[in-house]
């Protein structure tokens, strides 16, 4: 546990000092998105990596958070600090209720059901034009404000988003190392065995699904308030797949892996500007290659690779 804490502190210092390197260039804006995507990847990882339950509809929860927050503030003039928790609670309750029938399903069927759910939410964003502005989007969402400081620049947003992201990381690490985390891993390995030792697997799965939705909704609200403009295109099936790619590339069941995956997939398109149209091929290729050759993700795969290289060298020496 002490090692975990040191790791977290080192990571926090790294995150807080990073802006000094860039002096607020364009990259700061990208790093804000790395923070938001890290939150989303952790949310999905709690569900997929720890509890072993797949979701292909998480972009839907992300979008619900963004739209609830956006509509409440831009159209109804709420304070963003009030809109965000209300959005999170509403999304959490929705996920909790829908979670019971959805999480009864397993494997491929769970994937299809969550996918369907995500697409239905996406269609609703597009069709309720009076409320959401439809495909052309919703604009005029206010920035967050605290103690006279308006979070309207990339640097300010960086510290805001990363402050909250660090809190989410700390929460996720604590959860993973708690009794709940162990119960989740037990459900992952064998639901029946988990039930036998007294874990209410069904309820636990629904609870973690709802928690995951709440974190996604929070990330969505923050996204809406930093972007001040949202449109349904950001919350479609493709984004659900992108989130899945982040979690798989980083490493299932690893909080820092989620950060790695989110950082890689958010920064990659920026460095591959020329290859803008090919990013879809890169995502697909990465998914296939990772599942085939590094099922543990980067966090486990890279150290493994080094170990294997050094071992094979050692082996060659003996032979």
């Amino acid at each position, binding site marked *: 546990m002490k090692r975990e804490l040191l790791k977290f502190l080192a990571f926090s210092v790294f995150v807080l000092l990073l802006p000094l390197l860039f002096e607020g260039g364009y990259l700061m804006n990208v790093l804000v998105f790395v923070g938001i995507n890290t939150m989303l990847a952790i949310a999905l990882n709690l569900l997929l990596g720890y509890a072993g339950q*797949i979701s292909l509809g998480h972009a839907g929860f992300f979008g619900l958070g963004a739209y609830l927050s956006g509509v409440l503030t831009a159209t109804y003039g709420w304070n963003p600090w009030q809109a965000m928790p209300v959005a999170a609670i509403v999304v959490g309750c929705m996920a909790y209720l829908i979670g019971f*029938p959805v999480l009864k399903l397993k494997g*491929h*069927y769970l994937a299809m059901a969550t996918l369907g759910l995500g*697409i*239905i939410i996406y269609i609703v964003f597009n069709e309720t034009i009076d409320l959401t502005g439809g495909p052309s989007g919703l604009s005029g969402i206010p920035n967050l404000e605290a103690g006279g400081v308006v979070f309207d620049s990339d640097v300010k947003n960086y510290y805001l988003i990363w402050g909250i992201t660090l809190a989410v990381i700390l929460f996720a690490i604590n959860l993973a190392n708690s009794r709940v985390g162990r119960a989740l891993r037990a459900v992952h390995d064998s639901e029946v065995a988990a039930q036998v030792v007294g874990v209410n697997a069904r309820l636990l799965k629904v609870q973690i699904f709802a928690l995951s939705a709440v974190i996604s909704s929070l990330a969505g609200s923050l996204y809406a308030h930093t972007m001040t403009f949202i449109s349904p295109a950001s919350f479609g099936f493709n984004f659900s797949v992108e989130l899945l790619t982040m979690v798989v590339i980083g490493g299932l069941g690893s909080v820092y892996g989620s950060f790695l995956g989110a950082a890689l997939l958010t920064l990659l398109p920026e460095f591959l500007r020329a290859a803008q149209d090919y990013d879809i091929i890169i995502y697909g290729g990465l998914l296939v290659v990772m*599942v*085939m050759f590094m099922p543990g993700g980067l966090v486990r795969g890279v150290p493994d690779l080094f170990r294997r290289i050094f071992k094979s060298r050692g082996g060659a020496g003996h032979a």
Partner: protein
Amino acid sequence: MQFDQILQYVLSGLSTGAIYALIGIGFSIIYNATGIINFAQGEFVMLGGLLTLTCLDLLKLPIWAAIPCAVAVSTLAGLLFERLAIRPLRQPTPINLVIITIGGSILIRGLAMLIWGKDTHAIPSFSGDDPIAIGGATMLPQHLWIFAITVVIIVINKFYFYHTISGKAMRACAYNRRAAGLVGIDVRRMVLFSFMISSAMGAVAGIIVAPLTMTAYDVGVMLGLKGFCAAIIGGMSSGMATVVGGLLLGVLESLGAGLISSGYKDAIAFIILLLILFIRPQGLFGKADSERV
């Protein structure tokens, strides 16, 4: 007036439903042989349409030659997909299979985007565009082609699964893979066959629907999902239940789009999908004994 309109919706719904049925049967064949839901199924539908376009435009083949060519190339793609992505998988857990088929589908879609670009392409109808009047509704000759080809495929399918050795072997795999292996059936080869058959069927579906709806690199996503929905209604059977499921879905969608709202057309399929999964996971016509795990 009202009756004619409904007849029109039903007729066009039946023809899209036939397409969903073909794709759905493709899902079921792979599922029954391997327990895998192939998320890349829709991409073969897309490949069928776009490959036909290439055969027609670039190779200047007549349509009757272009179609078998496109189906053959799509089948080859299905074969490669199984050999390169599915078989080498070291940990074939359901989640890994979902992820790898999704990854494969994105990869195929991306490659298609490179080859054919992002534009929507039109393919000429098989035999003209003169509408045929049926009661107060009209149909296009292409609709008749869709019905005819679907019926032919279903009959061939039935014949293959019940009257040939390899079809019977595949059914044996569906009942019990282990037992099938014990009586000398090469299960891995049957898995490969199942991918080839379903990619061929998907390609046919993509070809016959393309003259009506146009085709593009990304049409496979929705068509694939609707096909899966048809298969779920049919309880993942590779026979008539899925055909009925597809037709039912097509008609409901068409009626919903016409009478309620066209914007929510796609949502109808997914609401049906969720309801079936929640309430009758064994399919509309299945017995309650088969748990969808």
